[in-house]
């Protein structure tokens, strides 16, 4: 089973691939809305990619108010 660190690393990798930013340019504490300049529609797309990648469902109400990668990863971790 993945550790939280592994999950966080995969989240960062997925985000950098999906939003076409250099790998390594994102860090766990980053606010993904501000750093990536995404809107709620793009956030929904990212949610789908995360769900498909990790094989989980992540209800949007569980990530409401979440804006950093580390907290997002912990929400994912609790579904693994």
């Amino acid at each position: 089973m993945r550790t939280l660190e592994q999950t966080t690393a995969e989240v960062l990798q997925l985000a950098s691939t999906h939003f076409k930013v250099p790998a390594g340019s994102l860090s766990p504490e980053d606010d993904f809305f501000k750093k990536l300049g995404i809107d709620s529609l793009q956030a929904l797309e990212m949610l789908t990619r995360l769900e498909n990648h990790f094989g989980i469902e992540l209800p949007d109400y569980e990530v409401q108010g979440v804006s950093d990668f580390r907290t997002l990863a912990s929400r994912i971790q609790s579904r693994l």
Partner: protein
Amino acid sequence: MPSRKTQIQPPTSLKTFKGRTLSWEWRDGVVEVLLDHAPANEIGTLMVAEFERFVAAIPTLAKDTAACILSSARPQVFSAGGDLREMYQTAMTTSPKKRVGEVRKFLNRIHAVANAIDTAPFVTIAAVHGVCFGGGFELALVCDIIVADKMARFAFPELRLGFIPGFGGIPRLKRDASNAFARDLLFTGRTVNAARLQACGIVSQLAGEGEALRIARSIAVQTSKYDAETRKAAKSFLKPVPYAELKREIDLFCKLFNRPTVIESLKKFVESRDAMPYLP
């Protein structure tokens, strides 16, 4: 079934239609209905009127149509649901006493359209990509087969606004999925991905990104190979329309709609600056 060379065509005037919110085109036994109403194919009075034109054309089109595909030309969205801005406008310009009557009239029109497509004498296929919320999800559920892009997302967010799906979503969701899953979707208002909906049988086929329409066309070609009368008989046997429940849904929607909390939620939606205020 006539070969393509000898295929009889419907009258030219009904073969194509270009409206302000949707268009359709008949070709080789398949009619493709394309939603294209900025920003997000919201279902308001104009779209309902244009759907009514389509429904009126169904008896004539049906003789030479094996399948109908419903898809969207809008990027990132199939349909975000009912036109809440129009709904709020109507509520604000109508007295509370008359408001429910106006809503009921609108719902009756939508239900008539939905029921006609639900029972259309050809196979109906929704090719869904992007956002498919509320009334958009209800529109997809009317179809016999839902093909969903793997990035599509579905939701019934109506409880967040203080009412219930009013375009027939609850009875149709129960027809195709378990009551337990329907309760989860409705009570949480959460979005779900296409893979999850396939797992519970609502989405029949998953498509790669951008491939839903291509796959829907492939299904349309396949379904057109079989005897039309047999297909029609199988459809009416397999797919009962829950008329009594649909009527109860309208009654319940109207009862809930006129409350201050609903008008407040609609106001908040209308005033939102979010690019996608569809999940309040």
